[in-house]
């Protein structure tokens, strides 16, 4: 069995692509941009209904979703987050229970590692052409705890 490795830069300042105006982007800057993309995407997704119109600024039209509770594509995201926003706070992830978040970025991946009082939530995003293109997630409830709605 072979282990695949995430795409990895060959060295420190690899010119990984062109930024705005054609300037070359270093790999550290590219990874920082990918992390900001994920943060901005999640801020909009968990913001307000009007903001959901902006999801297309962050996620691809053909977004590939591996959470079976969420439909495919940008439309699947819109439907899911519209639903989440309609729920009472008791049925949503409580921001106050978030203890620590790590963003781990390499190659085309950004992993969001969220340590909470009510469990551990790991999201893996693949970035393509400056947009979030693919998503996986897994949740570990606390011992004896329930799985939060939408994370089953």
């Amino acid at each position, binding site marked *: *069995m072979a*282990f*695949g*490795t*995430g795409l*990895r*830069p*060959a*060295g*420190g300042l690899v010119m990984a692509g062109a930024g705005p105006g054609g300037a070359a982007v270093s790999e*550290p800057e590219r*990874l920082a941009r990918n992390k900001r993309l994920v943060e901005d995407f999640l801020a909009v997704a968990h913001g307000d209904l009007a903001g959901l119109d902006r999801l297309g600024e962050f996620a691809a039209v053909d977004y590939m979703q*591996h*959470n*079976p509770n969420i439909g495919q594509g940008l439309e699947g995201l819109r439907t899911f987050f519209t639903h989440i926003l309609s729920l009472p706070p008791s049925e949503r992830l409580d921001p106050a229970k978030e203890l620590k978040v*790590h963003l*781990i*970025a*390499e*190659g085309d*991946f950004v*992993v969001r*590692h969220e*340590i909470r009082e009510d469990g*551990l*939530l*790991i999201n*893996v995003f693949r970035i393509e052409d400056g947009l979030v293109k693919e998503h*996986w*997630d*897994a*949740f*570990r409830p*606390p*011992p004896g705890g329930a799985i939060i709605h939408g994370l089953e």
Partner: protein
Amino acid sequence: MTDDASIERNKQVVEAFVNDVAIAKRLDRLDDLVAVDYVQHNPHAGQGREGVREYFAGFHRAREKDLDPSGTIEVHLIGEGDLVVRHEIRVNGLHIDIWRVRDGMLQEHWDAWRSAPGYDPPAGS
């Protein structure tokens, strides 16, 4: 900022642990790969290096079928700083491990599992 060489070294420690300990059950390798005060966030495993030893010697055997390498579709290792993520896509679900690695040893571990639709989660997942 961590350089690429140290990320690569951290990934090698993770791969050695998975191959030698988790798959090959070579518990003698634990002393070289896992810190004695390993912090474990999987509630089904005990703390420290000894917790890992007990887990793979006993309880883990019950889950072997669910985590057998023959069920692995794809693995991505994603590393930054002192953290390495192992993202394993399997036929029966998704297994994500995150390790903190320092000085060539695994220091801390978190993991989560998502069953494929219709598959019961492994006991102790």
